[in-house]
């Protein structure tokens, strides 16, 4: 296999997100290679972020690795997630992953449903050559 070319990072992970992913990976019953991240239609603002345990890599998944943990981004979600920082926020009564997404134009009260304007193709090309 040829050496994969270096690619821009579609997403970044905060320290807290890395810790949490490491934790859920360790606690998972089935062996998993990482966490798959995507978007789907739903909620009051139009779209929702999804997260699932990934047991294998999909052929077109974009893999982001940070400090030993991996997230797999679904190919259809890349344009929506470009530039997003995944964070994990813990307060007294709730703990949740948070997507800090520059493409997001509005969100539902709780932030689980969002409206996202996909990144233009030029942005990706710029990111790749940067």
């Amino acid at each position, binding site marked *: 296999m040829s050496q994969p070319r270096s690619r821009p990072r579609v997403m970044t992970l905060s320290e807290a997100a890395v810790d949490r992913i490491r934790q*859920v990976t360790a606690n998972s019953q089935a062996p998993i290679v990482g*966490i798959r991240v995507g978007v789907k239609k*739903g*909620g*009051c*603002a139009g779209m*929702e*972020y*999804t*997260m*699932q*345990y990934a047991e294998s890599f999909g052929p077109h998944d974009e893999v982001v690795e940070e400090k030993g943990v991996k997230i797999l981004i679904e190919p259809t979600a890349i344009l929506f997630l470009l530039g997003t920082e995944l964070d994990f926020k813990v307060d*007294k*009564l*709730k*703990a*949740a*992953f948070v997507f800090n997404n520059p493409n997001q134009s509005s969100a*539902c*009260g*709780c*932030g*689980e*449903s969002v409206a996202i304007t996909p990144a233009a193709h030029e942005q990706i090309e710029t990111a790749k050559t940067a």
Partner: protein
Amino acid sequence: MTTAAIIVTERAAERIAQIVANDPDNNMLRISVEGGGCSGFEYRFDLVSNVEPEDMLIERAGAKVLVDSLSLTYLAGSEIDYVDDLMSASFKIKNPNATAACGCGTSFSF
């Protein structure tokens, strides 16, 4: 005061016990309903130290949940649960009175 049951699940009771163990001054979970959110009403969760005169107190395994009388009219028959999945870990309310809910279940309507 009505006697309509509000059920606190075992998981919710365990989680409340864990939370208040770190904060003994505010050792009760108050759940209230207020206007807001995309579906018209929102649930609110607070840790508190005082029982008010009109409150209904629900206890399970040492965990204490308070609901004021106005919120109780909206919450009668509800189940208070704590759901810990990959995306988030938080309290969730299954409310038989709600006719529509926001994606996350924080906002709902009657």
